[in-house]
């Protein structure tokens, strides 16, 4: 059986069902046994701006998107203008033939910068500024064009089913686009019909209309569209596979880890997690009465942070979820949690900064900020997940680190992860352990919350515990938690708190700190969501006989300097790959490992990296043709 590596793109105005179209397509492909890697791109807008979803489908393990789109399903003009160039020879474009004459000026959401670039290209190829113009370029390249009049299809369908209401139902465009695609790639229809049933399980009438449309479009494509060489007829299903969206790793991770309080303020791309937790606030507990997660939408991120700390002081596992701008507001309270040794978890879904930046786009811009957030010296952990599956288990680790070391933990996530949809192995809750550290259930005798101990960690009482009265203050304090300005106690207390950083690097298992995928002469260091595209890029290079090493650093603060140093001792060239402008991990690496980064591969367009881009850059590096700083720019 030949290997399938197929990328499908659907685009349209925001609010037109691009997402649900993509979800149905992904679900159907996943049901057929394929691996899925999907990614959503959208503007900071509610309705009308261009959004799109690329779904990569393969019968082998995949961790990233690629540059080329094998089949583009469009139902508006903008998608064609923006993406026609991504479809290579032998690829296909399904489009609405009624749009043929549409000019670039007739699409108000095409911004002038993009239009100028497009016009230049069209001019150079002597083509009109219309859909017909760009499609002519595609055709000359060897792309198959599949014109279909969406309106005509709907009126035929309305006639056939004697349901005149169908005629003007533009909301069916997305289902039509998906069905044409499935027909074209000879995917069986049943999984699609089942998907529609499950999506509209509470609205049987709507399900029926969608199914009729799907049927009709599917058969239309099968009978009218020919010569497309890609057929996805199914493959062996992997056992225990789930299809998950980005925020579910940390959301379900929080439920399983026993997080019972989450306060948050709405922000893209973090709020999906909190909304999900609230929609699943009632929890089933083995052999016990039902539990619950209290999710509070606060008046701002400062309040989210204060409430979380207040809840954590009662012994409740507590967290918040935010993005860069919100996290900026949390910095003062973070220091309070630090000096008071409060275990909290901040899930930081990064996006492009600075300021509001590209509010709905990806970025790994906040690593240095997370490491340095808060004034004064206090210990914290900054821990980064590389993919959705990892983020589930890492959530459990973060809560354990917080409890065991009694310090705030910042769990680094990002927009690339949150708006991905992927297949992965079903999360296994039993692989998460729960370690509450020195949290007390009872107190006998005199109690000192910040008692000096051998390893600097004091038994922890909680608000409301019998005999466990303690004080907290943001001022320097004595062992009871009362204010002191005594210079000697100050030294002891600072040393007690800061000694925790060494404890973390000493006690956290090595493979939780750094994951090594092999070390070679050329070795990549990276963190977070670049993991997937890096893995895919180096695996293609390996097939070509080029070995590239990769170490994924998960524990970023405190930085595991000795371990990283020892891992990289045989590496000759270090390549830092990150989605930010300044190579932030590279700076931390230099500072701690005392070694220069040889090459940077960076991207800060707000669009996630593809494995194609990384492959190209790594190849240039190996061939000694690269700049010290390779800057990537693929993606609309």
């Amino acid at each position, binding site marked *: 059986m030949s290997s399938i590596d197929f990328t499908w793109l659907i685009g349209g105005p925001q609010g037109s069902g691009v997402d649900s179209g993509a979800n149905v397509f992904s679900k159907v492909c996943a049901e057929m046994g394929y691996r899925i890697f999907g990614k959503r791109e959208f503007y900071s807008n509610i309705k009308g701006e261009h959004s799109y979803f690329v779904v990569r489908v393969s019968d082998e393990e995949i961790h990233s998107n690629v540059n080329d789109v094998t089949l583009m399903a469009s139902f508006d003009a903008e998608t064609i203008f923006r993406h026609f160039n991504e479809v290579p020879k032998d690829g296909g474009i399904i489009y609405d033939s009624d749009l043929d004459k549409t000019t670039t000026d007739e699409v108000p959401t095409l911004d002038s910068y993009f239009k100028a670039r497009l016009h230049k290209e069209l001019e150079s190829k002597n083509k009109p500024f219309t859909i017909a113009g760009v499609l002519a370029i595609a055709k000359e390249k060897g792309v198959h064009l599949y014109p279909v009049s969406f309106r005509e299809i709907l009126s035929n369908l309305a006639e056939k089913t004697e349901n005149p209401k169908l005629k003007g139902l533009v909301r069916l465009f997305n289902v039509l686009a998906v069905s044409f695609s499935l027909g074209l790639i000879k995917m069986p229809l049943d999984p699609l019909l089942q998907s529609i049933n499950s999506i509209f399980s509470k609205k049987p009438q709507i399900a029926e209309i969608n199914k009729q449309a799907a049927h009709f479009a599917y058969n239309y494509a099968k009978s009218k569209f020919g010569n497309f060489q890609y057929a996805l007829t199914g493959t062996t299903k992997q056992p225990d596979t789930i*299809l998950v969206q980005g925020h579910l790793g940390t959301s379900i991770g929080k439920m399983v880890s026993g997080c019972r309080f989450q306060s948050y303020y709405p922000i893209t791309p973090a709020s999906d997690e909190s909304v999900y937790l609230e929609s699943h606030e009632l929890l089933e507990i083995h052999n016990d009465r039902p539990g619950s997660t209290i999710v509070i939408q606060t008046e701002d991120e400062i309040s989210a942070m204060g409430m979380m*700390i207040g809840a954590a002081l009662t012994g409740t596992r507590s967290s918040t979820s935010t993005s860069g701008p919100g996290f900026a507001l949390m910095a003062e309270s973070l220091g309070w949690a630090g000096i008071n040794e409060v275990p909290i978890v901040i899930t930081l879904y990064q996006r492009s900064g600075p300021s509001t930046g590209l509010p709905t786009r990806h970025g790994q811009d906040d690593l240095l900020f997370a490491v340095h957030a808060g004034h004064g010296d206090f210990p914290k952990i900054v821990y980064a997940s590389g993919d959705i599956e990892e983020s589930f288990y890492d959530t459990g680790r973060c809560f354990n680190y917080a409890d065991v070391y009694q310090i705030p933990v910042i769990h680094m996530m990002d927009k690339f992860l949150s708006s991905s949809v992927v297949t992965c192995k079903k999360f296994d809750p039993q692989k998460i352990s729960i370690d509450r550290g020195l949290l007390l259930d009872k107190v006998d005798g005199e109690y000192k919350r910040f008692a000096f101990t051998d390893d600097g960690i004091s038994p922890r009482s909680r608000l409301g515990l019998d005999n466990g009265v303690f004080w907290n203050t943001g001022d320097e304090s004595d062992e009871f938690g009362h204010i002191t300005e005594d210079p000697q106690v100050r030294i002891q207390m600072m040393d007690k708190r800061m000694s925790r950083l060494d404890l973390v690097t000493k006690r956290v298992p090595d493979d939780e700190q750094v994951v090594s995928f092999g070390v070679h002469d050329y070795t990549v260091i990276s963190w977070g969501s670049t993991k997937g595209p890096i893995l895919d890029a180096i695996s293609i290079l390996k097939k070509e006989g080029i070995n590239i090493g990769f170490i994924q650093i998960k524990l970023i603060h405190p930085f595991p300097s000795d371990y990283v140093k020892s891992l990289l001792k045989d590496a000759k060239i270090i390549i830092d790959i990150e989605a930010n402008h300044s190579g932030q991990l590279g700076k931390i690496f230099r500072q701690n490992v005392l070694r220069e980064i040889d090459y940077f591969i960076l991207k800060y367009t707000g669009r996630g990296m593809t494995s194609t881009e990384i492959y190209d850059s790594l190849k240039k590096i190996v061939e000694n043709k690269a700049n010290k700083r390779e800057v990537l720019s693929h993606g609309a």
Partner: protein
Amino acid sequence: MALKLADYKTEVHNDWCPGCGDFGIVNALQMALAEMGIERDKATIFSGIGCSGKTSHFINTYGVHTLHGRVLTFAQGGKLANPEMTVVAVGGDGDGLGIGAGHFVAAGRRNIDMTYIIFDNGVYGLTKGQASPTLKLGEKTKSLPSPNTNYNVNPIGLAVASGFTFVARGYSYDVRHLKDLIIKAVRHKGLSFLDVLQPCPTYNDINTRDWYAGIDLAQESMERHSRIYKLEDTHFDPMVHYDNETEVNEKLSQALIKSLEWGNKIPIGVFYQNEIISQYSTRLTDKIPNYLENPPAQQRISENGLPITDVSEILDSLRV
């Protein structure tokens, strides 16, 4: 063993200025806790930043000295996670009505069952006497370079408008009356607010103890001269008696109008009380029936180090 007043005092040295109005508030709070017999480990005093922020260190219950302006956020989080606990938040007027004004309004909307006491003295004492939100426009306390250029916040009016369901004012030199008000506030089902007039002897040379006592007025007349009078000594009825829009609106507007009285006659006592509006815990219980019996702080989350939360239904729904 019944707890005595002394049990609620810590040995921490109190470094407030001699004659500070804050002493009266701490005393009243300790007396109230003792009178209600609240166990030391079943109450938490949350405090903000400034002189008043030190309050939590002087009271022998759980004490959480938080950040400037943020005391209500910490206190609400604590109360939501452990609703059995008695929670009192305290802070200055700059803390609660300046930097923390947003939290003040938001807390009112939630109506969580706890008490918030503002130590109201018109100045930022610990930073040497700058104008705070309750200082009147045009007034010049002694360390201001020029008269105050801002209009004052009306704490009672703001509380009433924000949804606080118990709104009262006390005076720190009438400790017994203040103690009674604190007891009423703590026993109120919902969010209670106490604005406590508290002379700062060092930086506020306008609203002094003598000024509240009306010594200046006494020079003009031989009659009773204290500026302070008690609402309960008048025919003022702060209570919303039944769930009716007209009744609620009347009591709200009456409280607002009363709160504007200032100058030679300053009312203290309860301005507004409404136990008909649901408290936050009721709103939570509507969606999480066993919230109060099994709140976050009580929930079991693991057994032998392994999770016990059952997410199999969710995971099955994601299965392909």
